[in-house]
């Protein structure tokens, strides 16, 4: 899996009505990479992730997974999503299920794991995010940071090849941001391939192996964080970063 291209996005365009939100997006994700996508609000970051996860449909362009075009055929999409997970800003834990059930529902229903195996997998990943003691809790009994850690564990239970994160810490109180970023940092160290939309510049700089800066629907810059954060080539990147540092 290392060094193999997992996902490639080619000439992707997306419009809502006559509002072009994504323009000629071209990039690929290699196994083991941790890519952070940064950019100002409205630049199309969420839309890009949602297109990759098939929650949105591009106007033109293609997405390839292991060299195969990702088509909108429901059964194929389901299999693809089982491998390419997504963590949302608003957690999206199932409100009608306990923490444990949240982590077992898909492994049982989608992967058809037997009960005991689904259970031990859930416990393993809940432990890794420090949420195993809370297996009996319902989502609305948890703090934001706890919910997001459970959501991450739930995605991990599928043994994803690629995990997408859409601003996983933006809905959190400041004191809870750290606990989630730490979990993600630990995940990065395990070699999991991740594509992370974030406003946490420090995290992007320290953890990502590559950083993409999006501006007005375009990929304005795509580089290693060492260069992108200290010596950006595109003036728009410089402007964005300076606003961040001063703000």
């Amino acid at each position, binding site marked *: 899996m290392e060094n193999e291209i997992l996902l490639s996005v080619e000439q992707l365009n997306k419009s809502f009505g006559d509002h072009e939100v994504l323009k000629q997006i071209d990039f690929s994700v290699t196994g083991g990479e941790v890519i952070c996508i940064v950019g100002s609000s409205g630049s199309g970051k969420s839309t890009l992730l949602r297109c990759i*996860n098939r*929650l949105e*449909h591009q106007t033109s362009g293609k997405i390839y997974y292991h060299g195969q075009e990702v*088509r*909108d*055929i*429901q059964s194929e999409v*389901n*299999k*693809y*999503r*089982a*491998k390419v*997970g*997504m963590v*949302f800003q*608003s*957690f*999206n*834990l*199932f*409100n*009608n*299920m*306990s923490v444990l059930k949240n982590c077992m*529902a*898909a492994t049982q*229903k*989608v992967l058809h794991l037997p009960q005991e195996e689904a259970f031990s997998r859930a*416990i393993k990943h*809940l*432990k890794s995010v*420090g949420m*195993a*003691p*809370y*297996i*009996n*809790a*319902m989502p609305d*009994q948890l703090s934001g940071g706890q919910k997001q850690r459970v*959501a991450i564990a*739930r*995605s991990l239970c*599928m043994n994803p090849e690629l995990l997408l994160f859409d601003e996983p810490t933006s809905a959190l109180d400041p004191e809870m941001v750290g606990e989630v970023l730490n979990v993600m940092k630990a995940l990065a160290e395990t070699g999991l391939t991740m594509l992370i939309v974030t406003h946490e510049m420090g995290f992007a700089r320290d953890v990502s192996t590559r950083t993409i800066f999006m501006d007005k629907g375009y990929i304005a810059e795509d580089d290693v964080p060492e260069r992108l954060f200290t010596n950006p080539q595109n003036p728009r990147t410089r402007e964005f970063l300076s606003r961040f540092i001063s703000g």
Partner: protein
Amino acid sequence: MSMAVFMTQDPTNSFQWMVFLAQKYSRLFLQGMWITLYVAVIGTLGGFLLGFLIGIVEDMKISADDSPVKKVLIRVLKIICKVYVELFRGTPMIVQAMIIFYGISQTGVQISPDIAGILVTLLNTGAYMTETVRAGINSIDAGQKEGALSLGMSPLNAMFMVILPQAFKNIIPEMANTFLTNLKMTSVLNVIGVSELFMMAKTAGGTYYKYFESYLVIALIYLVLCFIFNRIFKLIEKKMSVRKNYALAIEYMTND
């Protein structure tokens, strides 16, 4: 209260007449109550099921890459559902009862008034439940569905495992309401000869020409039935809304 009130062999006032009729025709009233309950319960439950099915059909989305057969099928289903809902919401139940009962009889199929009554109640309930189910589904945050889909669940799995269980909880008060309405609305079914409470009151009142008292008896029965069911539903709602504190799984407190 003196025992004289219950000397019902020779009733002189309305109250005594009520007691007299209730005793003399207790079998009729009980039988009517049974039919009323039976038609209302089965008709309502069937109607809920139909309402859920149609609510789900109406929530289905056609995506560009679906096969042509599937696209046509979904579209036709949606049209059928729409026409059905419009028809049943736009006409009175009493008229539906007549049309369905005599319509089916005219085709030569033997149908008992009770079955026709259940069918009318069911179809009527289904048309109204559809709206409630759809509103219930829409009230669930879109993130719930997206969370399920992002794990590879099919839209149908997402619906049955995640969305409907949550929507159902929100719909329960409306379902209780619908049942209580049906309990009362079965009274119109006397026009096709269903021997429910209303019909029985007519019969019981007829012999002595004491309709006022006879209808007072069934009014009381309806009132008591509604009161009891209302209480039961309130209890269920309360039971479902209590939040149990969760127990920390101390066996997993240490992280190794």
